[in-house]
Structures are given as structure tokens and as C-alpha cells.
């Protein structure tokens, strides 16, 4: 109980002091005569003195330390961004492919074993196809200019074994058995599967299906037949072997034989 009264007395004294606080201003303190000697002592002019040399050296050393810490902090941050942040963003596909390619090239230069998936670095293009096959699939044929796009009248014994690329369908067209005129062909379906039609010995055509493969203008396809009409990728004109009635087998360089070829053959035969 005595502790309670003690605390109460202190609290009341404090409240009383607070009531007098407003009376204690800076002016009152300044006018207090008791403190005059102390005030005079505090305001006395100081002896001129230079800053200690040791303190200046410590000041400069401290500034250098702070600048070194900042360089370390920025260097570490840059290293983190280069090694962890950018590859991570490229891996997640956040960065544009061009930036991802640059990041991969930088890693290759500095011999860092970090590989960014090709999906992040490749530009958008049809998947699983080469440019040539993409053309075949889409039906475009830029390597075979066709002087006469209109198909000529087929002879009775001939059927156009090929269709223009624009007319290619999914079905394999049957071909008549014309050993001199049959042309090993390849028709490509819209799905990209090429169908090779090869004349057999007895004239019947056998078809085989194969997947699209790169073909060059001058090279023969894997399904080159033993009998073929001579065609050239440049069309009727140009240096090309003379078509023979006997149907000497020549390789067909053109991936897309054109109707004019059959027309030329028919003309030569009639002659």
C-alpha cells in the first residue's frame, strides 16, 4: 500500500510540474542569473585550431570504403542479373527471341555452360518443316517457273500424272500406263506427306508414301524412277536431254513436273 501512495505522490508532482512547463520558456532560462557563468563559459570564443590530421584521414578512408561498397553492390547486382535473371527470363519466355539469342551468344562467348531452350530463341515459323517443304505444303513453287500454266490436252494414253501444285489434293491420282510418258511424280498432300507414284515394269503404277524430304532442283529424289520423262526445272526450254520415244530412263530433276512437259513429249512423239 505504501508503494501505491508513493507512485500517486510522484504522479501528482509530475502533473504539477507539467502545469508549470509552459512557464519555462527559453527566455526564462536565458534570464536565469544562476547560470550566467556557465553561459559565459559556453559562449567564450574558441581558440582557433585546425582539424586533427588523423580525423581527416579517417574521414577520407570512410568515404573510400563507402564508394567501394557501392561498386561491389552494383557489380554483384549486375552479375546476378547477367547470370541468373536474364537466363531465367529467357527460359520462361518472357524476353523477346532476339534478346534471348543475344543472351545465348554472350554465354557462348564467355564459355558459360548455360543453354537457353531453342523455343525461346527461335523466331516464329512452321514447326517441323524446312523452307522448301513449307513451300510444297503451301503449294507454292518458286523454283519451277511455268511458262504455260494451262495444262495441255492430254493424249488418250496419257493422263497428267501430275497436277499443278495448286491443284494438289490429298488423293493420289491414278496414272495410266504409259511407259514413255509416265513421270515419276510426287504429289504432296496438304498435310505435307508426299506420295510418289512410280511406274512399275508392267506399267502399273505403284505408289509409295514417304515423308517430305528436302529436294534440290538439280538432284533427284529418292524415289526417282527408272522411267521418266525428261523434264527440267526450267520448263520446256533450256538445256535438257531430248526426250526419247523409247523412254530412256532419265532422272527427273524437277520436283514438280508440269503439264507442259507431257505436252512436249506428246509433240515430240507425234513428230
Amino acid at each position, binding site marked *: 500500500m505504501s508503494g501505491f501512495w508513493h507512485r500517486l505522490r510522484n504522479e501528482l508532482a*509530475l502533473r504539477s*510540474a*507539467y502545469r*508549470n*512547463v509552459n512557464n*519555462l520558456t*527559453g527566455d526564462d*532560462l536565458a534570464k*536565469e542569473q*544562476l*547560470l550566467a*557563468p*556557465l*553561459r*559565459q*563559459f*559556453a559562449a*567564450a*570564443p*574558441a*581558440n582557433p*585550431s*585546425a*582539424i*586533427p590530421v588523423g*580525423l*581527416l584521414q*579517417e*574521414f*577520407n578512408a*570512410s*568515404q573510400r570504403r*563507402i564508394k567501394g561498397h557501392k561498386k561491389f553492390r552494383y557489380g554483384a547486382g549486375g552479375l546476378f542479373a547477367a547470370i541468373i535473371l536474364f537466363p531465367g527470363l529467357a527460359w520462361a519466355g518472357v524476353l523477346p527471341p532476339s534478346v534471348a539469342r543475344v543472351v545465348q551468344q554472350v554465354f557462348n562467348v564467355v564459355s558459360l555452360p548455360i543453354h537457353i531452350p531453342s523455343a525461346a530463341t527461335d523466331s516464329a515459323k512452321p514447326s517441323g518443316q524446312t523452307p522448301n517443304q513449307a513451300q510444297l505444303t503451301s503449294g507454292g513453287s518458286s523454283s519451277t517457273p511455268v511458262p504455260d500454266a494451262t495444262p495441255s490436252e492430254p493424249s488418250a494414253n496419257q493422263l497428267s500424272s501430275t497436277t499443278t501444285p495448286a491443284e494438289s489434293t490429298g488423293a493420289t491420282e491414278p496414272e495410266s500406263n504409259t511407259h514413255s510418258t509416265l513421270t515419276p511424280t510426287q504429289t504432296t498432300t496438304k498435310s505435307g506427306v508426299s506420295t510418289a507414284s512410280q511406274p512399275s515394269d508392267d506399267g502399273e503404277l505403284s505408289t509409295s508414301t514417304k515423308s517430305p524430304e528436302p529436294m534440290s532442283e538439280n538432284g533427284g529424289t529418292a524415289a526417282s524412277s527408272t522411267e521418266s520423262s525428261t523434264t527440267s526445272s526450267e520448263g520446256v526450254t533450256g538445256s535438257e536431254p531430248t526426250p526419247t520415244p523409247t523412254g530412256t530412263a532419265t532422272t527427273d530433276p524437277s520436283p514438280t513436273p508440269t503439264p507442259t512437259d507431257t505436252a512436249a513429249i506428246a509433240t515430240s512423239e507425234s513428230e
Partner: protein
Amino acid sequence: MTDRDVEIYRDGLDATLKLAIKGDEACFGELWRALNPRLERFLYAQGAMGDPPASDVASETWLQVVRDLPKFKGDYADFRSWLYQVARNRMIDAARAKARRPKASVDIDEMDRWASLEDLAVGVANRAQLDGIIDKIRDLPAAQSEALMLRIVADLSVEETAKAMKKTPNAIRVLVHRALANLREEIGVSGQ
């Protein structure tokens, strides 16, 4: 010196402080020359006639300030509060070190203390009266003595003193009020 002069002077020191934080050696020297005399007098009045000398504690204070200056944020008034806060802490550390390793009073120490008093008390007409006042202030409770010294010797405002002592401004006013009351009572009693 009018209040306007003081304001202009303090604005100039604000700019000096900002440059010192950025690493300007000359500006730091100017700050030292502006603040060190009062700092040493405050430390002397607090530890008057005691160990260690005020100049040693002041040197330790400035070394600590130099190390932490790049991290300081605030204006000149905040800097002064911070300076005296560091000085108080260094004084406490020195007192604890002295308590752990007490050494016998040596005449050389006494001569050092009087030498520092000679340097600091330039212009004081009555040194005996000064010593008497300082002794009586030191006899007050620690918080009251410290608040009074910071207000009179260090010339800090109530807000700056509150920041230095980590108290509220009203608490500082109460401490100074009580210190003056006790001083009047002591001098009145001793004067009788």
C-alpha cells in the same frame, strides 16, 4: 545576432552538411570548427575534473561520427542532436572502461584536466564561480544535469535536446525546470 542571422547561419550549415556527407573534406572541416568547441565544453562540464579528459572523449565522438556520416540523413539540427547523442554514449563507454580498469589519480592527469580547462575556459572572468556552478550541476540527478548542460552549454533547442536524450520535448522541459529548482534550492541553502 538576431534570429534571422541565426536562421541564415543555420541554412548555410545545412548546405555544408550535405556536402560533407557527400565527401567534401573542406565542408567537414567547417562543421568540425563550428561544433567542436561547444562539444568539448559540454563534455568537460559533464565530466568536469574527471577522467578521461574531455578532449579524448570528443576525439572518440568525432571518429564515430566520421564513420557513420555517409549513413546520416537529416538537417543541421538533426546532426547536432546526433553528435551529442554519440558524445553521451562515448562518455558512458569511457565511464564503464574506467570502472573496469580503475587507475590511481596521478598528478599528471590533474595537470591535463587543468590544461584542458585553461583551453576551454577562455574569457570566463570568475573561474571559481564557474567551478562552483559546474560542481552543483553535477550533483543534480544525471538526467537533470545532462538536460541543463545540453540546453545551456551545447546551446541546443528543446527539440534537439529531446532527440539527443531520446525523450519527449515536454520531458526535457520538466527536467530543466526541476534542475533549476534544485539549483536555486542548493544555492539558497549554501548561501545561507
